[in-house]
């Protein structure tokens, strides 16, 4: 790979990531409000965000920190909430050029979020690490600073704004799930069953003694296993 090419790839990555960075600002700001409810300081929020760069993983983590859950529970919960990275990581491992060094693979893997994964994946036949670095630079910084900003602003903003922002993350989760459910009837069914089971286990006595983390872990494993048996997906 020649140097000039890598430089231009880095620049292109930065430019392509601007819309992503803007989206991250809003979502991470909302995440900051969740973190504030779990009593994280703005520094701790920044640290968690720059290390994890994961909306669902961090949300799940903050939720359990608020509950003062056992460490093992937060570990399992993070694993479940981030399970989609396992799939992405497998996919991306097939798309490296054989000359790509171990260090670059570590670098690309670190920034593997849904959005950066998506643009890196469609850009080149083989993953160009410099493109991914360019795309990550601004968006990851926006992500981390906006989390801090959310924690600070949560203490200053009027409660009506904080209340409105409290649903922003769920809106983002809907934006991931519903378009997929629209295209695929099985996913639609899975989503509906998940809402229903979640509602039941949250309301019915006995189940609702479980912590939120355990409830989500158990439901995810049971529902995903049953679906995998009844509606197996073909490997492409």
């Amino acid at each position, binding site marked *: 790979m020649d140097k000039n090419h890598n430089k231009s790839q880095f620049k292109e990555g930065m430019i392509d990531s601007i819309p992503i960075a803007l989206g991250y600002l809003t979502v991470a700001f909302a995440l900051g409000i969740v973190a504030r409810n779990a009593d994280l300081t703005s520094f701790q929020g920044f640290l968690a965000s720059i290390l994890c760069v994961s909306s669902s993983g961090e949300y799940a983590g903050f939720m*359990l920190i608020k509950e003062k859950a056992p460490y093992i529970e937060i570990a399992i919960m993070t*694993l479940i909430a*981030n399970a*989609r990275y396992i799939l992405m990581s497998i996919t991306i491992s097939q798309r490296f050029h054989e000359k790509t060094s171990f260090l670059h693979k570590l670098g690309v*893997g670190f920034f593997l979020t849904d959005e950066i994964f998506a643009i890196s994946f469609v850009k080149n036949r083989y993953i160009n690490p410099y493109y991914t670095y360019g795309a990550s630079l601004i968006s990851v910084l926006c992500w981390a600073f906006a989390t801090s900003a959310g924690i600070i602003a949560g203490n200053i903003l009027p409660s009506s704004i904080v209340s409105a922002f409290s649903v*922003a993350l*769920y809106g983002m989760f809907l*934006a991931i799930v519903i378009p997929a459910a629209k295209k695929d009837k099985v996913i639609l069914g899975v989503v509906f069953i998940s809402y229903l089971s979640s509602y039941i286990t949250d309301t019915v006595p006995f189940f609702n003694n479980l912590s939120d983390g355990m409830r989500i872990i158990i439901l995810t494993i049971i529902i995903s296993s049953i679906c995998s048996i009844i509606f197996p997906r073909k490997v492409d």
Partner: protein
Amino acid sequence: MKNIYIYIMIMFLVTLMTRYVPLFLFRKKIKNTFFNSFLFYVPYVTLSVMTFPAIVKAPELKIAGLISFIVGIVTSYFKDNLIIVSFSTCLTVFIIEKFLI
């Protein structure tokens, strides 16, 4: 006494593991259908379970949360855009609580 920094480190290490372990472990494609199907369904199930009924309880008024849930589903059905969907749910809560509180 549980330490927030230990929590953050656990989150960090487990997140990194989900990104790194497959990258270096599975050089070949995995053929097991159950395994692949399971990984395919997990994100949809977890995100759905985390969303409902939590979204109803998040804002100050439950009715605002419930309506924002419905608005979010409708918006994301027609518009595949993260920011627009997210903003529509926030705006819904804001407007409803403005009138009812």
